[in-house]
C-alpha cells in the first residue's frame, strides 16, 4: 500500500492467451489515448500499458481496496468482450508482486525466448508513451526508471542474453567462431529450403556482404535472389563459386550427397585451405559427412545447429536462475522505496507544522528579542531551528520506515499527532 494507493499489474501473455485474443486486446498507438483517458477516469491514478505481440499488460496505481478488478473489467469492456470472459486468461499482481512481475518482464525472464533483448526496448517505449499521455506521476515514474535500470543490471551482470537459441543464430555463432566477424564475407545459398532462408537471413543481418543463390531451377534462384536482394548464379557453376565464397548454406531436397569428399578436395585445395563454412540443413544430408575431415572445410548439419541452440538455451536458463534472485531483491527494495514516497506528504506536513510553531514562539518573544543585536538574533534563530530539527529527526525517520512498510494507519497517527496544527 502506498499512501492510500496500490500498485497492480493485470494482463495476459503468450502462455495464458492464444494469439487471437492477444491481437484483439493489443493497444496500438491509435487506441492508447482513449485507453489512458478511460483508465484515468474510472480506476487508475497512474498507468503504463505494455502491448507487444506476446503480451498486453496494464500497470496501474489504483485506490486502495479496489484491487485489480477495475483494470480487468476495463480490459474486457474496452475490447468489446463480456465481463468474465477474460478470467481464464488473465493474471493479476499486486504490491511488491506487481513490481517483481514488471522487473521480470523487462529483464526478459518472462519472455517466450528467455533473454531476448527486444522487451527492454518495448518497456522503454511503453513508459515513454505513458509519459507523453501524462499518465505517469510520482509513483510510476520512479518505478519505471528503476525497472529500466534493473533490467540493464540483469543484462550486464548475468549472461542471460548470450549464446544462440535459434537455428539461425546458431549458424551465425558457428560462422563467427570461424571468421570472427561476418562483415565483408560472401555466402552462397544452395537450394531454396525454408531453413536455409532462415539462416541466410540471419547471416545478412550480421553483416554478410554478398549473398549468392543457386538452385537447379534458375528461375527459382532468381525469384529468391529478388526477395533477398541477392545474386542468382547458375547451378552448373556451383563448384566455381564454392571455391570463392566463405560460407555455403545447403538446403535442397536432393536425396543424395551433392558435395562429396572427392569433389570438395579440389575445392579446398583451390581455396589454399582458406576456411569454408558449410551448413547442411538438408534431410537427407546433401554434404557427405567426411567432407568435415578435409583441411579448411567445416561442415555442420541441422543437428549440430540444434545442439548449439540447445546449449545456448541451457546456459540462459542457468543465468535466468541467477537473475530471478537479483530481481526478487530489487523488487522488494523498490517497493519499500515507493512506500517511503508515500510518507513524503506526512513528513512535509509535520515539518511545516513545526516551523510554524517555531515562528509563533519567536513572535511571542519579540519584545525580548528586539533588545538583542542582529548577530544575537541570528544565533537564536539558528538555535531554535536546530532544536526543532533534532526533536523531529527520529520521528521523521520513523515516518519514512512506516511508509516503506506500507503502514498507512501508523502514518496517519503520526500526522495527527505532529501535523495537526497545519491541517487545521
Amino acid at each position: 500500500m502506498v499512501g492510500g494507493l496500490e500498485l497492480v499489474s493485470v494482463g495476459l501473455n503468450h502462455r495464458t492467451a492464444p494469439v487471437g485474443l492477444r491481437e484483439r486486446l493489443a493497444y496500438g498507438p491509435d487506441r492508447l489515448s482513449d485507453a489512458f483517458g478511460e483508465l484515468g477516469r474510472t480506476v487508475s491514478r497512474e498507468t503504463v500499458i505494455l502491448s507487444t505481440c506476446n503480451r498486453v499488460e496494464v500497470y496501474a496505481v489504483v485506490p486502495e481496496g479496489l484491487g485489480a478488478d477495475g483494470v480487468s473489467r476495463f480490459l474486457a469492456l474496452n475490447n468489446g468482450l463480456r465481463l468474465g470472459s477474460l478470467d481464464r486468461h488473465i493474471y493479476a499482481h499486486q504490491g511488491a508482486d506487481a513490481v517483481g512481475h514488471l522487473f521480470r518482464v523487462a529483464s526478459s525472464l518472462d519472455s517466450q525466448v528467455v533473454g531476448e533483448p527486444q522487451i527492454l526496448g518495448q518497456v522503454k517505449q511503453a513508459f515513454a508513451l505513458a509519459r507523453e499521455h501524462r499518465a505517469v506521476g510520482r509513483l510510476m515514474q520512479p518505478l519505471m526508471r528503476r525497472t529500466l535500470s534493473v533490467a540493464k543490471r540483469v543484462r550486464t551482470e548475468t549472461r542471460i542474453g548470450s549464446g544462440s537459441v535459434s537455428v539461425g543464430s546458431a549458424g551465425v555463432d558457428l560462422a563467427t567462431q570461424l571468421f570472427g566477424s561476418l562483415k565483408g564475407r560472401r555466402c552462397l545459398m544452395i537450394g531454396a529450403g525454408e531453413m536455409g532462408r532462415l539462416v541466410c537471413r540471419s547471416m545478412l543481418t550480421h553483416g554478410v556482404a554478398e549473398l549468392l543463390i543457386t538452385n537447379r531451377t534458375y528461375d527459382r534462384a532468381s525469384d529468391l535472389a529478388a526477395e533477398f536482394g541477392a545474386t542468382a548464379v547458375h547451378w552448373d557453376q556451383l563448384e566455381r563459386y564454392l571455391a570463392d565464397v566463405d560460407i555455403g548454406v545447403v538446403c535442397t531436397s536432393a536425396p543424395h550427397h551433392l558435395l562429396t569428399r572427392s569433389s570438395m578436395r579440389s575445392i579446398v585445395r583451390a581455396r589454399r585451405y582458406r576456411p569454408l563454412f558449410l551448413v547442411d540443413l538438408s534431410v537427407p544430408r546433401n554434404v557427405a559427412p567426411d567432407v568435415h575431415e578435409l583441411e579448411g572445410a567445416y561442415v555442420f548439419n541441422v543437428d549440430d545447429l540444434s545442439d548449439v541452440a540447445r546449449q545456448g538455451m541451457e546456459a540462459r536458463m542457468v543465468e535466468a536462475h541467477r537473475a530471478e534472485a537479483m530481481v526478487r531483491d530489487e523488487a522488494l527494495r523498490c517497493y519499500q522505496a515507493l512506500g517511503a514516497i508515500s510518507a513524503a506528504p506526512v513528513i512535509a506536513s509535520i515539518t511545516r507544522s513545526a516551523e510554524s510553531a517555531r515562528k509563533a514562539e519567536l513572535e511571542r518573544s519579540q519584545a525580548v528579542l528586539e533588545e538583542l543585536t542582529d548577530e544575537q538574533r541570528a544565533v537564536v534563530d539558528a538555535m531554535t531551528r536546530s532544536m526543532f530539527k533534532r526533536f523531529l529527526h527520529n520521528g521523521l525517520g520513523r515516518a519514512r520506515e512506516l511508509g516503506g512498510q506500507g503502514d498507512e494507519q501508523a502514518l496517519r497517527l503520526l500526522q495527527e499527532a505532529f501535523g495537526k496544527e497545519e491541517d487545521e
Partner: protein
Amino acid sequence: MAALVGYIGTAGVRIIGARSVTLGRLADVCLWIGLLAHFAGLGHIAMEARALPVHTTAASVAFVGSVVGLGAGVTRLAARNTVLSGVVVAMAAVTLGVSMLLPQQTPPEPTALATFWLPFHVLGIFFGMASFACAFAVSGTFLVVRKRLKAKDFAALGRLPSLDGLDKWNTRFVVIGFLTLTIGIATGGAWAAARGGGSGLGPTVWITLVLWGWYAIAVLVRVVGQWRGRMAALFSVVGFSGLVVSLSLVLLLLQGWHG
C-alpha cells in the same frame, strides 16, 4: 617477481575466462603493471651492467619475455577477444619464469662486445625470437580451437578467438619475427666483420640460420602462396619448439650464446 605475478594473474583470468567485468579490468591492470615491472627490472639490470640487458643468458631470456609481454599488450589493444592476449601473456610468464630459473652468470667485459652493430644484432635476434614465441602461442591456440570445431565441441563457442583471427595474428608475428631476425642476422655479420671475424660459424649461428630458412619458407608459403590454416600453425609450433630445444642444448653445452 611483480612482473611474473602480473602476467600469471592476467593469463589466469583471461584463459579460464572469468566473466566478471571487474576481474577483466583487474586482469588488464595486472598486465600493464606486469609489463611496467618487467621493463623496470630490465632497465635496472642494464644500468648495473652498463649495457643492453642481454649480457647473460638469464637476462637475454628475460629480455625476450619482455618483448613477448609487449606482444600481449598489443593483442590486448588490437584484438577483441581477450583469450588471445591471455595465451600470449602466458607465454611471457613462461619465458620470464625460465629466465628466473637460469643461473646468474658473471657478465663479460662490456668493451669486448661494444661495436656499432651489436645493439642492432641482439635486438634483431631477440625481437625475432620473441615474435616467434608469440606466433607459437597463437598457433597452439589455433590448433586447439580447430580441434574443438572439428570435434563439434561447442562448449566454449564464442569465448575462444576465431580461427581466422588466430591465423592472421600468426601471420603478423611470423612476418615481424622474420624481418627482425633478418636484420639481426645481417647486423650480426657486420658485427663479426667489425670484430675482425675469424671465429667461424658457431652452433648458435647455425641454429639461427636454420631458423631463418624455416621461417622464410613459412613466410613464402603463407604470404606469397596464401596457404593458411593448420599448416601455417604447425610451421610456427614446430619452428619455435625446434628453436627452444636446440638453443637449450647448445646453451647447456657452451654456457653462452657464442661459446
